[in-house]
């Protein structure tokens, strides 16, 4: 046994699972083939910050043994790339930051523990914007990840490594995190599927927090069905995360259908604004037509407070980040720079050397908006507007099963194009941050590419706990698109 010519570059979880179940290949073959693929292509892509080949092969062997003893399951022996801010016991977890250089995670994140139990193989750590702060993965302290579709372009971010690994065929599935679009935007830029679950659907325990009230872990995959499989294994109540929802997890794969009959989908007019990229607009409108052809009723809706979302997002996210990142001080773990005996000097030197410019910028912003005398004007006000944004969605979902929108205003931009202009970079989250602020679920599914061949992401937004609806829409659209292609 052992197919040394196993092509893993477009392999889905579902297909790999079938190969493993049928005995056509072993988990060791699969992991080995993937590691070789990474070795072949990653020097051009830089999707992975670190690999753990020995550990992965050991896990794969264990999966094969478990299968020999009768264990089965859709993730048994499936290699998965993990964004470098999720704790996997015994592996590094740098968050693509110098400040966590040398840190080894002492425990498993809840999602990791669940995937480990399901037999998944943790093959390596994917690159990201430092502490998930960025929209291009250019803020990684270690390397700039390239978009495999066009190496001159960014893969998006912050989960750029996870998206690029899929697009480059060096991952079967990956995990990302999404605070303001960090799963959906890179998925859109790289042409893969990325799902941000409802806030509280997936445990955040073990996710190195950026903005605690916005962060969610989600699947990044080649297909919508794979996203359903991966989400199924991660979702559900966790006693270690008080914000997880005590609601049963439905069978996501069972929700997948080939048409959209009886579904009403809304088009929020605020997501089709003047000045947006024509190719993106054309692609999304074509996707809308496809959904209509699949039987969906398309209606216009309005989310009037959308225009405030970026401002609200950057107040709340930075405020929470300023506290969340305070723990990186050189006292207990990670990097320490200690010029003298004074702890205050040590904090300053450690954080000065350990954090990159964007992280510092956001810590300062967050510290400012929480400062005495400014709290009411910024943080409190932002929380009020946040409630209005949620109300917008609740009104829309009172009449719609899901909403269709672009995931991003433009296709992938060029490396270096936005690095000098933070505000322009922040605006690439304009269509995604709203879902985080409202705590609802949303997914980016590859829409029709631009004439240049650049991927465009169709964003499907659903109400809280509406994962089944968005998966159904995404799957039907994806299947129809594949059929016509």
């Amino acid at each position, binding site marked *: 046994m052992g197919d040394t010519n196993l092509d893993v570059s477009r392999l889905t979880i579902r297909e790999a699972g079938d190969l493993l179940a049928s005995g056509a290949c072993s988990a060791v073959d699969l992991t080995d083939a993937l590691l070789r693929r990474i070795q072949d292509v990653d020097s051009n892509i830089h999707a992975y910050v670190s690999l753990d080949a020995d550990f992965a092969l050991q896990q794969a062997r264990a999966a094969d043994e478990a299968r020999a003893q009768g264990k089965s399951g859709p993730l048994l022996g499936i290699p998965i790339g993990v964004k470098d*801010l*999720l*704790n996997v016991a015994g592996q590094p*977890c740098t*968050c693509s930051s110098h400040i*966590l250089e040398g*840190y080894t*995670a*002492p*425990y498993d*994140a809840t999602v990791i523990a669940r995937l480990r139990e399901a037999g998944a193989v943790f093959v390596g750590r994917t690159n990201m914007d430092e502490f998930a702060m960025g929209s291009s993965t250019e803020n990684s302290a270690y390397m700039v990840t390239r978009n495999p579709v066009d190496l001159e372009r960014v893969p998006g971010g912050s989960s750029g490594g996870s998206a690029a690994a899929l697009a480059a065929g060096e991952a079967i599935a990956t995990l990302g995190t999404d605070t303001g679009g960090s799963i959906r935007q890179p998925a859109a830029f790289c042409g893969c599927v990325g799902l941000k679950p409802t806030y509280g659907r997936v445990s*955040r*325990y*073990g*996710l*190195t*927090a950026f*903005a*605690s*009230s916005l962060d969610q872990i989600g699947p990044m995959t080649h297909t919508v069905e794979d996203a359903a499989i991966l989400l199924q294994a991660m979702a559900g109540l966790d*006693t*270690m*995360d*008080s*914000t997880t929802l005590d609601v049963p997890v439905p069978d996501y794969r069972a929700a997948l259908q080939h048409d959209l009959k009886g579904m009403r989908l809304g088009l929020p007019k605020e997501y089709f604004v003047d000045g947006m990229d024509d190719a993106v607009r054309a692609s999304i409108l074509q996707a809308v037509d496809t959904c209509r052809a699949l039987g969906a009723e398309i209606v216009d809706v309005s989310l009037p407070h959308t225009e405030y979302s970026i401002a609200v997002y950057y107040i709340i996210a930075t*405020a*929470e980040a*300023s*506290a969340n990142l*305070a*723990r*990186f*001080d050189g*006292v*207990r*773990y990670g990097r320490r720079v200690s010029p003298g*005996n004074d*702890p*205050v000097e040590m*904090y300053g030197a450690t954080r000065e050397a350990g954090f990159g410019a964007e992280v510092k910028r956001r810590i300062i912003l967050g*510290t400012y908006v*929480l*400062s*005495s005398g400014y*709290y009411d004007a910024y*943080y409190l006000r932002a929380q009020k507007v946040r409630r209005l944004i949620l109300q917008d969605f609740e009104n829309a979902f009172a009449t719609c099963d899901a909403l269709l929108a672009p995931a991003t205003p433009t296709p992938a931009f060029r490396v270096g194009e936005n690095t000098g202009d933070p505000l322009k970079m922040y605006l690439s989250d304009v269509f995604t941050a709203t879902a985080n602020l409202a705590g609802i679920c949303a997914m980016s599914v590859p829409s029709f590419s631009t004439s240049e061949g650049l991927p465009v992401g169709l964003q499907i937004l659903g109400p809280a706990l509406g994962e089944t609806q968005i998966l159904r829409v995404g799957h039907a659209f994806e299947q129809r698109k594949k059929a016509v292609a």
Partner: protein
Amino acid sequence: MVYETTIGLEVHVQLKTRTKMFCGCATGYGEAPNTLVCPVCLGYPGAMPVMNREAIGLTVVSGLMLGCDIAHWSKFDRKSYFYPDMPKNYQISQYDKPLCLGGGVKIDLEDGTEKTIGLTRIHLEEDVGKNTHFGASSGVDFNRAGHPLMEIVTEPDLSSPEEAYAFLQALKQILLYAGVSDCNLEEGNMRCDVNVSMRPVGQQELGTKAELKNLNTFKGVFHALQYEQERQAALLDRGERVVQETRRWDPDRGETSSMRTKEDAHDYRYFPEPDLLPVVLEDAQIDAWRKALPEAPRERRARFVQTYGLPAYDAGVLVAEREVADFFEEAVRAGGNTKAVSNWIMTDVLRVLSEKGVGILALPLTAASLGALTKLVEDGAVNMTGAKEIFAVLANKGGDPARLLDELGLAQVSDTGALEKMVDEAISANPKSVADYRNGKAAAAQYLMGQVMRLSRGKANPPMVLEMLKQKLDQ
């Protein structure tokens, strides 16, 4: 000039929970450094807090004992400041929605009147670690980090070091009664920050305050306040300003010194803790806690005076510790003589406890046996001398007083024939004393009495002996 002092206290109390405030680590004192820790209480990346419901319950019970209003909706906030003993560099605390509001503690003033010290609020937070300095380097022990800590804030109602001391004693007593904390000062279970200011008598607005930190004993609070009163009064007398600042109390030097002024005060940048849900308490739950509350020490003292006819002082001694008061009532219920049980506890029992350095529950002596012992005395079965002997055995080994009476041969001799024989023997053996007595030296009778007791090996019934002696000597 004559000044009046205004004092407010912030008392931190470690709650007696099995596990820490936000993780499953055991609470403990004196363990090897950094052995009671986990990713949560060490502030590791990705770790998240989970609320300890037991700590919420103990705080609400404290609030109910102290007459607070219990919040039906309360929340936690992050309080940000950098310090090496603080794992996350923010402390999870409560800012604008604490668990308890209002309430008060009654204290007795020297003039015999009662004063109520108002409470502003009680909130719940997590304790920090402990820094140790080794000369060239420093270490942090995080065993204490995350221990549930209740902060009780008073109104500025205290007007002297004596009142502050009395308040802390009364508060400690109530918290011990409530069973919410061990209140062990040596182990840092109770720690105090003090705000103190002075103003000329008659002035409306308060003077500029100083905040005193590092007060780990009630005596420390008392002495620091005395020092601060003198310091501030001297400043004001000289026409100088009191600077608003935080001062450190140095118990060895017996003085306070400036730590930081208002200008470098922290901006804690409070905001709601997004990792925790609000605390919602239903009336039914609060009522259940209320119904299970123990009687407060002050009410118990009043009841002891009323029900048992004890002097207020005695009642105060008995109720000082809940277990002692329970012991007293159980002994009385077991048929003990009220006044006698009270006397035994206040003298012999408390002496033995302090000699042995244990609590009353650790003593072999039971409430029922003490009650029975007082009954034996009351019934004349044993005199006090014998009773003390029995008590000594009970205190060391325990046992049944009636059986000990037999075993030790301590039964009081009240048989007239036997007593007469001993009285006669004493009279004939001590002619000088007899002569002295008859010459008007009444004290000689006491000596003769002692001789009879000696002959009876302490068992003679003293009143009967005295009666008999007088009869014979006066013949």
